[in-house]
């Protein structure tokens, strides 16, 4: 079984984070501490060494999905207005998914108009993980992928598995 902790030793990240935390809003400090101390299964999120608003994220492909066995790198950025504005999240690893485009941009309502300041980094990452389990070709971002998903799902799943093998290996 693949473990995410090997890639970002949490202790190391924590030391850095504490050094930068002084000017950060308390909300971001608390969220970060909790993400590091009590990570979501299958997800790791670590603040960048030089910018505490920028997170290196890894999501393991859910077992019940064509992305199983893959590890997907994402970047997450908390804008100045956070939590009044949504975090900006993007896939860095190539992925064959109807709601994620070539540039890694994600079509997810809570990242746009359904954002609420009561949501957190944790909830956002969980939603992205859920999106990997349940692709939604009816609300596509990558239209060509969505079309394939609708007309020939078996073929689409095969391509998604292929891409996972080719691009999403740790």
């Amino acid at each position, binding site marked *: 079984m693949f473990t995410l902790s090997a890639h970002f030793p949490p202790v190391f990240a924590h030391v850095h984070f504490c050094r930068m935390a002084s000017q950060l*809003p*308390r*909300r971001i400090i608390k969220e970060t501490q909790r993400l590091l101390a009590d990570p979501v299964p299958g997800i790791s999120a670590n603040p960048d060494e030089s910018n505490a608003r920028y997170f290196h994220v890894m999501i393991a492909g859910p077992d019940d999905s064509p992305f199983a066995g893959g590890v997907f790198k994402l970047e997450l950025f908390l804008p100045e207005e956070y*939590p*009044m504005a949504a975090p900006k999240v993007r896939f860095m690893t190539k992925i064959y998914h109807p709601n994620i485009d070539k540039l890694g941009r994600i079509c997810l309502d809570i990242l746009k108009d359904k954002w*609420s*300041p009561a949501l957190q980094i944790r909830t956002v990452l969980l939603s992205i993980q859920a999106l990997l389990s349940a692709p939604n070709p009816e609300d596509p971002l990558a239209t060509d992928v969505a079309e394939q998903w609708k007309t020939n799902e078996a073929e689409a799943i095969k391509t998604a598995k292929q891409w996972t093998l080719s691009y999403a290996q740790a």
Partner: protein
Amino acid sequence: METDEELFMEDSDSEPEFLEDELQVMKFEDLEEEMKVAIADLQDVLEVSPDICRVLLQKFKWNKDALLDRFYESSDAVSFLIDAHVLPSRSVSESEEEECQICCMEGRLTGPACNHKACTECWKAYVTEKIKEGQSEIECMTSNCKLIIEDSQVEQFIGDPIGIASYRRVLVNSFVRVSKNIKWCPGENCLKAVKVHQPSDSRLIVCPCGTRFCFTCGNEGHEPIDCNYLKKWLKRCMDDSETFNWIHANTKDCPKCSAPIEKNGGCNYMRCENTACRYEFCWMCFGAWKNEGAHSCNTFREKNAGGKTDREKSRVSLERYLFYYNRYIGHERSLKLEKKLKEKIARKMEEMQQLSMTWVEVQFLQKAVEVLSECRHTLKYTYAFAFYLKRENNAMMFEANQNDLEQATEQLSGFLERDLDRENLITLRQKVQDKSRYVEQRRKALLDHCNEGNDENIWVFNE
């Protein structure tokens, strides 16, 4: 006691009798007042707060009857209000916590009727962000709680007069946006709206600020072309302007047959590729090429001979478009240039008044300049109209009208631009007055013909 005059005014205010083409100009305060009246009107029936009434009216596009129909259809008032998200479906129990869940700081916590709490700073930041996005109905901050925060509470959260003023603007804006018979004047610095009794198609509005705009599409007045075709035309002008610019920058027309020719080599020997023409000429002087063999040449040749008919077709289609576009844009440029003419005429009028003419006697010039720009304006849009018009008998009548108006307009323009300083004022005045009257009539005749055609469906348009 009210005086007779006040009574009379109140009377005329409360029952505005609109004529067909009457319109009402509304300032920001008038719009707010109109909203207030509608809110109070609804409040009499529903007996809920004015804030709730505003949100409900906005949801129903300020159509009180539609709102009330729905209200009476619903099983009871409370569920109607809950469904509209103006009453909380359930209110969470008040927590004893001191820490705000949003910023994780301690402070005085408050919240809307659903009891979802946050500190006042967070509420302020939240509503300010939503107002910046132009949202008039702001939901509770909690995810999945759809309760709309009452206007007065939003204002309380904002706290400062500048923020409250921009929230009020957002509210009035949302009212205007959904009101079919009210539109903002698009004029620069004109902050007024115009209300019409009956919104009719492509209706030309003249705002007191001088802006002329189409009530339906918000563009400047565009008779005789309708909003749909205007939209197509403007899109085409946008799309094709690059092609057009390229042609202007890189081609010259064959001096014999006027086909556009691109010079893609250094040689100045040119032979027109138009099979019917084959004119050989010099790029530099446009003269016929006689001195054969004097240059080593690298002339432009179209390699794909098979695609010729297609190419010719697309060239014809482009030429046709450019024909109309050139005239359309030509009148627009003239309109801009004639702004200067207005200043010149104003100076001339002063001069004339110093030379023993009366104020009344020189007004004809002012009038003529106005007529001139109206004609240019109309002519400009006749070319967009004509571009989509299929040539048949009625279209030919239109073209005759257009031609006549255009010639007369150019004559009038000539009188005002060239003859102004040369001619005897008495003769000039006669000429200018006659011509202005004539073009005004012709302009009206042209537009009437177009409008009648619309009513009777006689125009055949190319898509």
